Structure formats: C-alpha cells, structure tokens
C-alpha cells in the first residue's frame, strides 16, 4: 500500500491549504496532521483520498490514479469528525457495515465478517450497547462505534479526522496504541489529524504541520516537532517539561 500525491494544490475558496505538495504515505507509517482550527486539515485529508476534487496535481494509490475504479474501500477507509444519524440502526449492524466493501454484490455478510465485527465490538467496549440504537449513544460511545466500524473495514490506509475528540483519556490512549500496533504488526498506514502535541510526539512516525497561507512543514516527528515549530504551530508560548528521557509540551497557562 502506497499513496503518492504529486504537485498537489488544494485551496478552500481563496485560502490556500497546500501548494505544489509532494508527499508519500507508505505502509507501516503512522502520520499525524497538525494545524490550527480552520486551516484545512480535513480538506487536505479528504482531497488526498479522493473525497474532494483537487485543483491541481495527481494522486496515486499503488501507482493507480485515485480516480480509477480499482481503488476501493478495501484499500482506504475514512473516519469522519462528525456524523448525523437520521435513521436508527443498532450498534452491531452499524459496526458490521464496515464489512460492506468486502462483500460481493450478490453475497451476504459471512461468519468471518460477523467474527471481525464481534471482535471490534469487544475491543472498543461496546458489547453492552450492541443492540442499542446508535442515535441514543453519548458522544464518546458514538465515536467508539465509528472507530470499531473503521477497524472492521480493516483497510490498508486508515485516514482518521480527529479520532480523539469526544473520547475520554483512557480511550484516547487506547486507540492510539491500537493504531500503532496495526502499523507495526499489520503494516497498515495511519494518517490522522490531532491537536495533542504530546500524543503526536509519542505516537507519530511522521508529521505534517499546516501553517497559514499554505506553508507546510513535514518530515520525521523528532525533527519537526521541536519547540520553535510547536510554538509557531499553536501560536502560543509553550512550556517544556523533562521527565526522565522524555520531554512534554504544555501551554504556559500560569500567570
């Protein structure tokens, strides 16, 4: 699995998100996309995987154009930031719908599909809700259902738009660790937007920082997420705290 964008230009009306960007996402890589509100993180993600049409440039998945019909939902999955559920559906059936790309046109969900669905329902601690209508879940529970569905889809490239919001801290760490494990053991490629600098520093192999007017800073996390870049990124003075051999960054809120 390899996603390559060349000379990619994306803008939202007049605002440039990226200009002539060349980037490569390879299997086994864990990518973080960081940037201020409204800078175009979601637009960039959606453009990269073909959900939005792009102004300029080309995108290839395994050397095939993203527009070609051979690029499927078995290869790329996407987690939306928000969902609007108009019709009721049980949590179980919702998670199972992640298997849809793997079922043939005339086929049905097989026992292997149900097995994968069950496993992810357990994993995201949704078993007690599995017959509940998804519209009645809390924000965090709804998010976990979406994540379970995404894991059930089990695509090679998992693109997640702010998967951590609504989640309590325990589940935030859990999903990050789980995605990291998928990168290492199953050679998945993960690309997510997030705001937490410390999580990004700990979990992401590579980061892409979006600045105003299309400035992009990308590379290995340890090279890019350094104090001056972080302060420029968040546009706020940061405090560096050293704990054994790890350093952590926090906004200096005292005083």
């Amino acid at each position: 699995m390899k996603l390559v964008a060349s000379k990619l230009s994306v803008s939202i009306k007049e605002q440039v998100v990226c200009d002539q960007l060349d980037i490569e996402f390879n299997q086994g890589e864990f990518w973080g996309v960081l940037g201020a509100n409204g800078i175009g993180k979601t637009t960039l993600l959606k453009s990269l995987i073909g959900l939005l049409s792009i102004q300029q440039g080309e995108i290839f998945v395994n050397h095939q154009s993203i527009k070609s019909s051979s690029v499927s939902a078995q290869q790329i999955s996407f987690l939306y930031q928000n969902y609007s559920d108009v019709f009721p559906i049980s949590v179980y059936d919702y998670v199972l719908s992640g298997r849809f790309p793997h079922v043939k046109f005339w086929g049905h969900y097989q026992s292997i599909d149900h097995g994968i669905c069950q496993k992810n329902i357990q994993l995201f601690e949704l078993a007690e809700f599995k017959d509940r209508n998804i519209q009645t879940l809390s924000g965090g529970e709804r998010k976990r259902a979406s994540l379970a569905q995404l894991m059930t889809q089990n695509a090679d490239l998992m693109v997640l738009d702010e998967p951590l919001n609504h989640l309590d801290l325990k589940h935030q760490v859990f999903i990050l660790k789980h995605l990291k494990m998928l990168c290492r053991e199953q050679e998945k490629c993960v690309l997510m937007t997030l705001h937490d600098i410390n999580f990004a520093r700990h979990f992401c192999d590579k980061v892409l920082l979006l600045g105003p007017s299309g400035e992009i800073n990308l590379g290995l996390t340890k090279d890019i997420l350094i104090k001056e870049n972080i302060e420029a990124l968040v546009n706020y003075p940061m405090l560096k705290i050293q704990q054994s051999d790890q350093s952590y960054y926090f906004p200096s809120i005292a005083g």
Partner: protein
Amino acid sequence: MNHAVSKVLISFVLILIPIISIIVSLVSGIIEITWSELFSLSNSSDSLSYKIIVDVRLPRTICAFAVGGMLSMAGAIMQTLIRNPLADPYILGISGGASIGAILAILLGFSSFWVPLGAMSGSLVSMMIIFLLISQLSSFSSTHLLLYGVVLAMGWNAIISFILTISPADSLHNMLFWMMGDLNYAQSPSLAIFLLLVGLLLILPFTKILNILNLGNEQAMVLGVNINKMSLYLLLIASFLTATSVTIAGSIGFVGLIVPHMIRLTLGYNHTVLIPASISIGGSLIVIADTIARTAFSPLQLPVGVVTAFIGVPVFLLLLVKNNQVVK
C-alpha cells in the same frame, strides 16, 4: 423467541395479511357474496356472483394492492434517498404533475379512458423536469433534490388551484375525487401487478446498498458506494413506481409516508425486510381502505385516500407513542 422461528413467522404473517385482505375485499360490497359462493366460483362461471367478483371486484382489488405496494416501496426508497423521514413518493411533485394531466382530461370532458393517460403524461413531464434539474448538479445532493421537488410541487399546486377555480361545478367533484385517490379509473390489473414485481426485482439486489445509504451519503461513499449512480438509479425507480401508481389510482396520500415507518418501527430498518414488508402491508392497507370506501356509506363512495388516512393516522401515532416508551 428463536431468531429463525421468528423469521418464518414474520414471513408467514406478511403473506397471510394480503391474502386475507384481498378475500375480504372480494366478498364485500353492495351485493352480498357468501364464502361458499366464493370458493365454488370455478364451477359457476355464468353466475352473477362470478361476474361481480372476477370482472368487477378482482381487477379493482388487484389494482388497489399493486398501488399500495408501489407507493410504499417508493416511499421507503425516497426516505432513504433524501435521508428525510418525512419524505414520501409525492415529495418530488410527481403527483402534482399527474393531477394536472388528469384534471385537464376531466375538464376537457374526455372519456375516463383518457384520465390515466393524462395523469401519466403529467407525471412524466414532472419527472423530466426533476431529472433535468438534477443533471445540472456537479454531484448528487439530497438537499437539492428535496428543494427542487418541494418547489416544483408548489408550482403544480398553484396550477391545480387555478384549474379548479375555472372549472365548471359539475366536473369539480370528479377532479377532487381523483386527487384524493380514486380507484374507479383503475384499469389493467395484470399490468399493475407486473410493474410492481418489476420494481421489486429491480430493487431487491440493491437492498444491501440501501442499508448502507441509510447511514448517510458520506458514510456510504467511504464504504465504496457510487453515490451519484446509485442515487439516480433509485430516483428513477421510485419515480416510475410513483408515476405508475398515480396513473392507476390518483394521489392516494399517506400510505407511502407511514407504511415504511410502521415497518421500521416493528421489523427494523433492514431494507431486505423493509421493501417486501412495505409492499405486503401497504398493498393490504389500500385493499382494506378501498373496501371500506366502497361499502361504509354505500351507495355513496368515499375517496380511498380519506380512508387510508383514517386507518393510518391512529395506528401510526399509536406505534410512535409505544415505540417512544420502549426507548425510555
């Protein structure tokens, strides 16, 4: 209850309800027909009861069932397509266009043969306008479709009001009757049932995709559904089903809106069940409603649309209230 057992039981009930309602419809009417007469029909093909049942009641009953089935199926599809629980088969103005064609035919004094043809032309014009408007969009949008339809329907309504205003009093009754849904013009039951089956066969392979569309267009897109193609396909089928049923029986309201919801509330949202169950219940509802419309105040006939509302509204409200209690 065991899952497999309940499945068989539900299928059995869904087949039984139409059969019972059709039999009840056949034996009810101004001229009483006993059960024994009904079951010995084949050996008395010259008798009066044979003529009443086979030549008069059976075609009308079959048409009633087909219309109810088509409207309910179209309603279920439209609700998913537009992602709005309030959508019904008429939301795109197809019935408005049909009404204009039909009441023009009545106004101009054409024979009753021409009324369905007028309705059909009107609904086809309406469909063409919707598809023309949709084709101008860069990608399919449920909101646009809904707005186009609602505005078009308003336009048709204005024209309908205009025609009603200038129409002579003696044709007004027929016009109003037709617009409330009227099976008196119903012709060719075999064609009606054939088209119902064609619609069902064209939808059944896609029920799995309809379930995914229920999650919303965005979700369906990332799960690999081609939204533009699929939406146009569904829109085309729902429109033709609506146009056909309006052509046969006028704008029978309400069935297409509530029957799919009744099924969702009782059997769930899975379209593989929802679509056939909607046909069974929607068809039966119109058969029963038409039977009541024919007999309740006979010799006076009621518009069948009024009766469907009388049955449907309380049943639906009851279901909603009961369902709400369960959620709590």
